[in-house]
């Protein structure tokens, strides 16, 4: 009975997140434009500058990286709804209803994950149209598993940040100084083997590196580390982030 109630509470919070997303056409357009820009323009530009032998190959290498990057952005930014909720009073409305705090948290997390995974699927479709062939082992389920783990980790991070930081500007700061370095040091855009040693260490301690690696493994069968290690590290990272996110959210 209690569990049933909790599920319907989570669903109510989730439903609202999705309705909001659906209403904000700008966000939807961004979700489509961002991968279009990255894959279509930048991917092709890289291709010609680098003058790689086969067109498809570099794009195939880049696609999993862009997939992870866009999802990380979308996932983290989804935390901003919590800043809005506080600012525009809806948080109070949720807090006076009899639902558990955990339900609000889980509903919001699932909303963010849905958005990020949806973003991922859009990129996949787009990439297929651009001639990228997904040929890795366990391609589809593996990619979805990785997408889920990456997005829930960064949705949680976004929630943690949003619970601590009350202004939009602060949120942007964290995005720029935390998320962007993580992405650039994850091997999303270039193989990390040519980097100097001190940067290699940064790459190795960056959990996102393993997300990109796993995605690349499932998508095109290319990877640097052991896939089991990748997934384990990702899993531990996600669980840690969920706990941190939950902690800050409850405290705020």
């Amino acid at each position, binding site marked *: 009975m209690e569990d049933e*109630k909790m599920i*319907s*509470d989570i*669903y*109510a919070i989730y*439903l*609202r997140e999705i*309705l*909001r997303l659906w*209403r*904000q056409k700008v966000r939807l357009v961004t979700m489509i434009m961002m991968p279009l820009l990255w894959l279509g323009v930048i991917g092709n530009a890289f291709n010609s500058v680098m003058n790689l032998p086969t067109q498809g190959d570099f794009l195939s290498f880049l696609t999993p990286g862009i997939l992870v990057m866009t999802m990380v952005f979308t996932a983290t930014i989804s935390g901003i709804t919590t800043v809005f909720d506080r600012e*525009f*009073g*809806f948080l*109070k*409305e*949720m*807090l*006076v*209803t*009899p*639902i558990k705090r955990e339900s609000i948290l889980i509903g919001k997390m699932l909303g963010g994950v849905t958005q990020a995974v949806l973003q991922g699927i859009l990129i996949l479709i787009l990439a297929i149209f651009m001639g990228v062939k997904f040929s890795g082992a366990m391609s589809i389920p593996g990619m979805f598993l990785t997408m889920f783990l990456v997005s829930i980790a960064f949705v949680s991070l976004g929630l943690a940040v949003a619970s601590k930081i009350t202004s939009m500007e602060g949120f942007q700061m964290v995005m720029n100084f935390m998320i962007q370095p993580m992405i650039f040091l994850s091997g999303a855009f270039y193989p990390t083997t040519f980097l100097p040693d001190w940067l290699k260490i940064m790459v190795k301690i960056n959990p996102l590196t393993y997300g990109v690696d796993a995605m690349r493994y499932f998508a095109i069968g290319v990877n640097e580390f052991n896939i089991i290690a990748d997934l384990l590290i990702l899993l531990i990272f996600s669980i840690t982030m969920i706990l941190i996110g939950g902690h800050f959210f409850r405290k705020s």
Partner: protein
Amino acid sequence: MPAIEVRNLVKRFGSIVAVNGISLEIEYGEIFALLGPNGAGKTTTISILATLLKPTSGEAKINGYDVVKEAAKVRQSIGIVFQDPSLDDRLTARENLDIHGRLYHMSREERQRRIEEVLEMVELLDRADSIVKTFSGGMRRRLEIARGLMHKPKVLFLDEPTLGLDPQTRRHIWEYVEKLRDEGVTVLLTTHYMEEADYLADRIAIIDAGKIVAEGSPSELKDSVGGDIIKIKCSDAENMLKKLVSNGYDAMLVDDEIVIKAKEAEKMIPKIFAIADEEIKSITYKEPSLEDVFIHYTGKVFRDEEVDEIEASKMKWRMRR
């Protein structure tokens, strides 16, 4: 058991004492107003009762449940309209109500039926499927009231329900609150509009700087200031005065008018007519306003800007008609 029971409630924010030992007892079905100026501690009190803030000390029970120890049961018993907006303005009116109903575990049929009912009541049924962003301030306020009532709470908190609304919308909201009286909902409302408290409330507590300085029905409060003033003009004032004084009235002659201090003028006037065989030319009386009450108990005037606002809104009201 009272619907709301508050004992020695205290809330401090650092060095600020926002609520300083408030005690209240509000019966089921009562409409009770907390009347006080800006910063008096009204919102803080409501927030504690609605389980959004923990009291520093003291205790409060809503519908028999302790606001700290039994917060979940309190939440199930109450509805609230916040002072500040709290709707999701990207959703439609119907969606806002639907999500709210879900959070109170109402069944689909129940939600659908109740959405129609509450929207009908606040006259927004025709805008049910418009996005809230397109609503005017008054419409949003009405929707918030509808949402507060959606799950049929036993106790409804209204924090400044008509703040910043034009007089017409204010009247409408007063009418909804009056309807709640018929439905037996207990209402605790805060306001700094005297006329609002006067018009709506069965009982009023005047709150200033975190303390309740006076409490009672509007007429009790006014009487406590010293009662009404009745003025009579008549053909033979001297004779009339003698009769009144010999009947025990507190009367005197000022110029050619008889001035009587009365506890309850409405009841006294018929009696005066009964003992007067002189021809009464005119009879007038003035009740002290809640404003007089406030001044009497706090030694302060309500801030000028607010009085001006009320005056300005009265002006608008008159001009419209």
